[in-house]
């Protein structure tokens, strides 16, 4: 129903959008909050905690955005979306930004009228199986039944992988992540496939997590990041540089704890980052202390990672590719100057 409504909005509401095409940043400032599309419940990325507050890496990107604009990480409303419904929700203007572990692909970047902004997590697709099956490699999976979520790159990659290796398989695709993992747990499938980070997250939901293992094979590149609509370059820049600033802050060693000292730093890079020198924030349509606000309220990229998916979380996923470029990973952001 939701997608039908979104489509109707897309058809009927276009007049208003086209004439105004009002800057999203102005709209956001006017309504007083950021409307952020997230997943329906993926531990580590976006899931409500026991008090109903949303937490996770994807969620924190939106909170950082709210902090940069309003100096308040709570001024954000979350719309939980299934993989299937996410793009329509963004196209129709139901949400301002889609921060929902979405893989950056050429197809999505061009045909849908949407833009990827920056990468917040470098992921790859993997497989989870029951240990009892005694499978050690993805290449031993010929003839297996695979559970996956529909409307994802996962669904396409798994088809490519099995075809390229001349293996037979059968896919059962479900609409939501929860249905998929339940079907896997009930034994409908031999294999559960998704991005590796999601495999770790979903494994936590299984009754006997230790009976299941994640195969070492990674069969695809899955750079995940937030998306915005085509046609509003200012908002595109704001979201993009929010991510870049978080990474730059980690690189310069600016954390929530040492922010007060760093504000007094004489390092020109830190001064530009925190807005004690220059007027870089204003160029984005924000205040000059926008990064300081984000660090104070949410933390830098490393802190966000550790708290949600790294050692500070139950997931405890190795940082791997997501380490800073200077520390052996590929997480790299253009300089703030």
């Amino acid at each position, binding site marked *: 129903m939701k997608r039908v409504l979104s489509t109707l909005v897309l058809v009927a509401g276009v007049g208003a959008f086209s004439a105004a095409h009002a800057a999203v940043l102005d709209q956001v400032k006017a309504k007083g909050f950021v409307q952020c599309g997230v997943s329906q419940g993926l531990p580590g990325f976006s899931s409500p905690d026991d008090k109903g507050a949303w937490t996770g890496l994807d969620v924190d990107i939106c909170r950082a955005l709210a902090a940069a604009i309003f100096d308040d990480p709570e001024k954000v409303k979350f719309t939980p979306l299934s993989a299937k419904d996410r793009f329509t929700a963004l196209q129709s203007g139901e949400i301002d930004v889609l921060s929902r572990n979405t893989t950056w692909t050429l197809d999505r970047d061009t*045909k*849908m009228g949407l833009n990827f902004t920056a990468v917040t997590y470098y992921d790859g697709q993997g497989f989870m199986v029951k240990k009892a099956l005694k499978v050690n490699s993805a290449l031993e999976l010929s003839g297996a039944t695979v559970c996956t979520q529909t409307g994802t790159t996962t669904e396409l990659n798994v088809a490519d992988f099995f075809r390229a290796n001349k293996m037979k398989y059968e896919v059962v695709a479900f609409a939501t992540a929860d249905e998929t993992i339940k079907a896997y747990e009930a034994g409908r499938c031999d294999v559960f496939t998704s991005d590796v980070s999601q495999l770790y997250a979903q494994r936590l939901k299984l009754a006997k997590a230790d009976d299941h293992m994640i195969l070492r094979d990674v069969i695809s590149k899955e750079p995940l990041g937030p998306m915005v609509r085509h046609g509003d370059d200012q908002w595109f820049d704001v979201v993009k540089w929010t991510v870049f600033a978080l990474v730059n802050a980690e690189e310069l060693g600016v954390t929530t704890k040492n922010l007060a000292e760093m504000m007094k730093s004489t390092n020109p890079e830190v001064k530009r980052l925190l807005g004690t020198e220059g007027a870089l924030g204003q160029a984005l349509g924000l205040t000059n202390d926008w990064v300081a606000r984000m660090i104070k309220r949410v933390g830098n990229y490393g802190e966000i990672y550790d708290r949600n998916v790294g050692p500070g979380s139950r997931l405890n996923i190795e940082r791997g590719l997501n380490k800073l470029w200077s520390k052996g990973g590929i997480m790299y952001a253009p300089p703030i100057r």
Partner: protein
Amino acid sequence: MVDRRDGARPPAGSLVNDPRARAIAVQLLLIAAVVAVGWSFVQNARVNLEARGIATGFGFFEQTAGFGITQSLIEYSETSSYGRAFLVGLLNTMLVSGIGVVLATVLGFAVGIARLSSNFLLARIAGAYVELVRNLPLLFQIFFWYIAVLGTLPGPRQSLSFFGIAYLNNRGVILPEPNFAEGAGLVGIVLLAGVALSIAVHIWARRRQAATGKLFPRGRLALILILGFPLVAFFATGAPISFGYPELRGFNFVGGFRVIPEFAALLVALVTYTAGFIAEIVRAGILAVARGQTEAAYSLGLRPGPTLRLVVVPQALRVIVPPLTSQYLNLTKNSSLAAGIGYPDFFYVFAGTTLNQTGQAIEIIAITMAVYLVISLVTSGLMNWYNRRKALVER
């Protein structure tokens, strides 16, 4: 509009005062307004989609779909086009609704008649069934069958075996698969001819009975035509139809014909749910036939069975058919709840996966609406035709 069947000419005068001309003018203006509004919607959407850089048009039908589908009646692979995926989904919807309509009708009639039975236990069981299935949400029932019933079956390696021929596990029911060798076609032709001849004999025998009152042993003849001759043909051509039995190899059974649990759960839920409503319609239809009809039949010496079959039901059908059409339409549309359990029906494959992969919401939702509309209109068209045939003919 003013009806001037009496032939009286309107008084001569200006067109403005002519009620006929005025009525036509108003109608034309209204049509023009509707068309203009519709056109502005289309134009608006087109211009704005273009401005936002969202792909438009129907070219995606020929692009490679790239995703797999669990169940397809026609040849389909990941390299097939979106157009092919569209057909696969459509056929899956037709399959589940077609079988569903037939089974729901049979079950619904049985329960509806049982509820009127003079057997206390039977009537109460039928009543309890109707109240139970009618008052629980359909999606809940689908989940019940899928998760609570079929989901608890053992895995492939612990399958329940039926004499080593058929197997039941949480991947579905695996049945022997018929393999057709040379000569199988002849058996099929004999079988089809037998069915056609039986129907012809049936019609002829009924006409003759109506005219002369003579009975004809058409049941026995049909048995010979449909079962006897094809069996003779089967052995004469050297038993060309054999069965391939499923075998457990690797992860799952290889070979054999498989019914996936998503299909089974959806079908059972749709049939039991809709049958509850049909049962009530049937009961209402039967109760609408005057009691005197039954009494008259009894007094003519008819036993309860023939009375029901020959006197009550044909009259009840006039009341039953129109609301029955609605139930058929409901069943077809409800089959789109398949999305909940991952059965690849039309809505799921097309308005779900295809929409998501292509991002062309407007075209796809429009086509989806058109397809369901066509299916529903065709169904009600057929039912209306049947209803006219069953309607009371005044003599």
